[in-house]
């Protein structure tokens, strides 16, 4: 039997190979291997590779069944892509596009069993096997949903990307939003000229390469959309803060945040066991609390997530292990726990920072690294002999209007006599002591 070799068959074989390499690439990188949404992406890509593989057989053997199976694989591929995007954007599966996709798939599966779902015809200079009629329309519609969702995903990722990974998000945008639609349009123009299959496939390869490159290099792009991680606070059992870390500005009030941690610490035995997790829903987000032997850790995020909870538990375990000696000694000096940043980098490395909103956002050096005029520095050191307090005030001072330091020292000089004359414990009014002496 003579096989029907043509340019489309060669391209499809190449594309199948490329897709399988891509799937393996996503799978072998340890940093991204366990990301759940990428599991669905791998399934989607695999189903798409089956579409192409079935097409190869359909073309080679001029077999309608293979063509219809290719259509089915397209419908399933779109279904998995919708799952991928839903999970990446909201960390949940349900969405209206998912319903549409399921309806389309059900319709497509039915129409594929009906006569006239595929045909053999002369087109683009060679004999092609393709979907036709209603089945063809549903499969093309599914491809369109595929394209629109990819477009939306890339666009949203770019718009919401913090500036530190904006460049990566831009490459992702190019991959998802420019090449993908052009590639699909080229595919739809295939019937006019076979050169479009070449363009379509090359663009698809470039598009997917861009996206996979960004995902491997900067997996943070996958965590831009599902939730915002705001802040993590570690407290010891005495309620002393040991470590504080911010990812982005939180709407959760400081008093509420620390208040909940304190409250849970007080009643931890009734509310949660050691090692227990508690989600507290607040209007502005969610507070996830984890209680362990020596510490309580609170994490504020825009919504709860299994990933966040797991990261929090692992962070707490490592924190206790790393600082066991200090915790046993009940040391509550913040400086003893500064190295906990390494644990943040270990357990929360995929969550993007959003504190600095853009590259022109004003920055300051922290108090420790800020130099004040020596006269002012000396004066402040006499007012604040305690180093920690001095740094705390200095960090406020550098964010204050320039005249504040002088006005503050003037006010201090003016009131300091009042501190000395009127003892702290007793502050009688209107010179009563003097009157009694008189």
């Amino acid at each position: 039997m003579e096989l029907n070799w043509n340019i489309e068959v060669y391209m499809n074989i190449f594309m199948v190979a490329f897709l399988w390499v891509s799937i393996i690439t996503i799978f072998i990188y340890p940093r991204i291997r366990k990301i759940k949404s990428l599991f669905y992406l791998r399934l989607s890509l695999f189903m798409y590779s089956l579409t192409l593989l079935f097409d190869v057989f359909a073309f080679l053997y001029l077999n309608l069944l293979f063509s219809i199976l290719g259509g089915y694989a397209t419908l399933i591929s779109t279904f998995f892509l919708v799952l991928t995007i839903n999970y990446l954007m909201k960390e949940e599966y349900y969405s209206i596009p998912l319903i549409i996709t399921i309806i389309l798939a059900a319709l497509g599966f039915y129409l594929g069993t009906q006569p006239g779902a595929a045909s053999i015809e002369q087109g683009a200079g060679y004999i092609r096997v393709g979907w036709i009629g209603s089945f063809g329309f549903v499969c093309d519609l599914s491809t369109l949903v595929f394209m629109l969702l990819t477009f939306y995903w890339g666009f949203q990722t770019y718009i919401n990307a913090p500036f530190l990974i904006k460049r990566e998000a831009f490459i992702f945008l190019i991959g998802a939003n420019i090449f993908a639609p052009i590639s699909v349009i080229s595919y739809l123009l295939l019937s006019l000229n076979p050169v479009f299959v070449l363009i379509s496939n090359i663009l698809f390869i470039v598009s997917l390469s861009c996206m996979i490159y960004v995902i491997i290099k900067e997996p943070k792009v996958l965590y831009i959309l599902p939730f915002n991680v705001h802040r993590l606070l570690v407290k010891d059992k005495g309620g002393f803060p040991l470590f504080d870390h911010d990812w982005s500005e939180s709407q959760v009030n400081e008093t509420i945040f620390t208040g909940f941690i304190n409250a849970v610490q007080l009643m931890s035995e009734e509310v949660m066991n050691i090692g227990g997790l508690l989600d507290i829903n607040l209007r502005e987000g969610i507070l996830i609390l984890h209680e362990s032997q020596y510490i309580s850790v609170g994490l504020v995020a825009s919504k709860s997530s299994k990933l966040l909870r797991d990261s929090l538990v692992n962070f707490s375990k490592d924190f206790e292990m790393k600082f066991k000696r200090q915790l046993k000694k009940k040391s509550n000096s913040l400086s003893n726990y500064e190295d906990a940043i390494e644990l943040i980098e270990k357990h929360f490395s995929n969550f993007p920072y959003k504190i600095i909103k853009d590259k022109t956002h004003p920055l300051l050096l922290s108090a420790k690294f800020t130099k004040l005029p020596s006269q002012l520095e000396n004066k402040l050191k006499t007012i604040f002999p305690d180093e920690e307090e001095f740094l705390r005030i200095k960090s406020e001072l550098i964010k204050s209007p320039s005249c504040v330091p002088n006005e503050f020292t003037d006010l201090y000089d003016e009131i300091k006599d009042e501190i000395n004359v009127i003892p702290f414990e007793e502050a009688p009014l209107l010179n009563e002591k003097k009157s009694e002496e008189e």
Partner: protein
Amino acid sequence: MSENHIINIKDFANGFGLEHPSVQKVIKIAENIVSQNKTLDVETLYNRAKRILQIPRKGLLRIIQMLINRGILIEGTKYTRRSVLNNPLRKTIYFFIKENLGAHFSDIRKNIFTPGDEDDLGSAGQFIWHLEMLLKFKYIKKIKVKNFTVFIPIEVSDKVGELYFILRDDINREIVELIYTSGPLQRSDIYKIVEEKRETIYYRINNLAELALLEIDEEKGNLIHINPQRKEKVSMVLKDFRQAEENLIELSANGGSE
């Protein structure tokens, strides 16, 4: 390019620390930008560091990100009237001043820094710092009454603030209330009704007269009456104190019944 400017792949894999020469150089560059009174932002820091250190983009961005993560580069928006109240202690001081009109420096400090907590909340210097910030951002203003510095909300007039300060004292209030309800009285009559030492009462009356709250009518045998120009305000402030006392009694009665 000198050797210690180079950040190699291994550095990325292991995570580089603050002591890394390139990180130290980026901090130095940031210090220079600040010392030149120029705006420090990521773009300026990145461009200057890139030019001087010739570190690859990714490495330099990671250094900047690490400096932000570790709180060495901090968000640099200057305080605004709104954000200045984000400090919880400052907010507490402000609300205390608002709810306790006429409180003076030591009074506020005594109530905010309950003895024993002073170490946690900070020194007198820190307390004055917060007051300065509240003054600067026009939440409060200060008035001097005798030797006392009194802090009042910006919207309260100096004269009313002074009245609240004077009448926060129980003995002063009792004297003024007595004269307000009974009409002009002699010093000795006041002393008989207010159960305090004679010299205390006489000293307070003199003080209140000095502060132009009371007037001593020598023509009418040293009869003491309230300064007519301040009578209306005195009435308002006394009413306010009475209301506060009633609320307190009601509150403690409810607490007791529970």
